[in-house]
């Protein structure tokens, strides 16, 4: 089996979640790479889509921000933020959007904090804030979440709830008035988590080759069901080849 690095495993794990016909909302870095990998490997009719307003950009070079001029070149349409978020809240197009998000903290129900650690008014650590994260998490039916597997990040209680996951579980989104959906999968540097169809609680779905379930649980503040966990299939040589040669030849992200 071909050697691969962890970021390649994570990227491919995310790419596999993207289906043909999906409209992929992501940021830069690994989320953009996952979208590019999906388009080149398993979802040729998926569409990359940026909150800044560009649809289906060509990306001859990898952008370093969603406002990078590199997303504007040869796009199908260039608009603005209003267009982009409107498309995600739209009852027709929005139902085809899959979001890719990251966060400083996540809880059992996939709710995310990207705002502060500590007190809101005078925080211990201030992060960037929602950006479009809360929007996409509120609107769209499916989300991929990238996380570092650390105890301080998988927490029992968020310091601040920036982007809605399944809120308090089961019926949480419906009760609150959010659109159906929410996070689908959490991809970390060790594991892949999914959410129970009924309780909406996070469970361990997979662990990467060489990682034990115990290691994963040691890096979380809350417990999850591990009874469905299986080893994640490593990236295939074909997946790796496309990822390395077509998606990030300059190794700007990997």
């Amino acid at each position: 089996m071909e050697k691969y690095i962890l970021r390649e495993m994570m990227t491919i794990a995310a790419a596999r979640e993207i289906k043909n016909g999906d409209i992929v909302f992501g940021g830069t870095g690994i989320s953009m790479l996952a979208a590019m990998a999906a388009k080149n490997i398993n979802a040729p009719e998926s569409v990359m889509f940026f909150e800044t307003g560009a649809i289906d950009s060509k990306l001859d070079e990898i952008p370093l921000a969603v406002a990078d001029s590199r997303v504007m070149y040869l796009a199908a349409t260039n608009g603005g933020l209003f267009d982009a978020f409107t498309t995600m809240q739209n009852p027709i197009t929005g139902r085809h959007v899959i979001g890719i998000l990251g966060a400083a903290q996540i809880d059992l129900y996939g709710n995310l904090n990207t705002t502060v650690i500590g007190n809101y008014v005078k925080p211990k650590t201030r992060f960037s804030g929602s950006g479009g994260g809360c929007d996409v998490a509120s609107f769209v039916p499916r989300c991929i979440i990238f996380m570092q597997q650390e105890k301080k990040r998988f927490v029992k209680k968020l310091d601040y709830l920036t982007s809605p996951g399944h809120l308090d579980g089961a019926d949480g989104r419906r009760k609150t008035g959010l659109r159906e959906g929410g996070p689908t999968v959490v991809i970390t540097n060790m594991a892949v988590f999914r959410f129970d169809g009924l309780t909406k609680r996070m469970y361990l779905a997979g662990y990467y080759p060489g990682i034990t379930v115990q290691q994963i649980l040691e890096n979380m503040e809350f417990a999850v069901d591990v009874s469905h966990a299986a080893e994640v299939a490593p990236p295939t040589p074909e997946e790796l080849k496309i990822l390395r040669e077509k998606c990030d030849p300059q190794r700007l992200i990997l």
Partner: protein
Amino acid sequence: MNTKDDKVMALSDAIREYVKDGSHISIGGFTINRNPMAAIYEIIRQGIRDLYLYAHSNGQGADELIGGGCVSRLDIAYGGNGKYAATCIRFRKAVQEGTIRVEDYSNFQMCLRFMAGAMGMPFLPTVSSLGTDLLNVWGFSEEERARDPKMPNQKMIVMDNPFGGWMDTPKVVLVPAIQPDVTILHVQKADKQGTGRIHGLTFADVEQAKSAKHVILTCEELVDTAVLRRNPDQNNIPFIHVDAVVPVPHGALPTACYGYYDYDPACLLHYVKCAKDDDLHREYLRKFIHGTKDHEGFIALNGGRERLDRIKADPETGYAVNLARG
């Protein structure tokens, strides 16, 4: 707004005329693209204080204004700057040290707030943020809001859908309009009357312009009215909203301007290094901003002509192909 035929002004005059201590302002661009940096440096140079800044993701511009000591209150969605700063550095410091006060929104919410202002409506609806702390946690109290006629009386309001289940939407969040005293944009082309043309993504610039009492347009090129009017479909800032037109070549530097130049990685990285250390940052302000007369002076200290050549946009792609981007 006004309908005058010639609105061309010097940058220092435009800032002095429309940006005052305590003004509520918004700036165009997004993270590392098309921020009105020349205007921002001029605000810092003029020592304007106590600004209320409305930002969605105004990365570099917001961070420098905050670092320059000009901002006391901030509505913001995203204080990051792409790969150059996951969280903007002077923004983070200022919030953690309590030297500015902040209230959080999402990017769409800020966008809707500008749009509401542009439409002359008190609010617009969304379902974004139901069940979150964006909705529940306020940065500014009801008392403070009640005292300040420039602030809406509430952060946001949740309302049951008055049309029953129409559009499968049981509840909406109403986000209140913003009406900045002044919005400052940097655009690629403008004429003396104030018609502006943005190439590439418009971000929320158009809504920000239309929501404001006054608009300052800085532009790469001042072009003849007749030239812009040959393609009126491509002009996205109507002159009736604009008060001042200021030609400033490279006015978005160190952020990018699609079709003209890329962001300047060397300048951005130097800023990051300075911003992280209070002493270095003080020195940065002293030398690069207060120590320069204008944007030309700032550029001269930041690599000058040689640097400009390196980031010059390729005419085909609109950015600098194969630029070393740090």
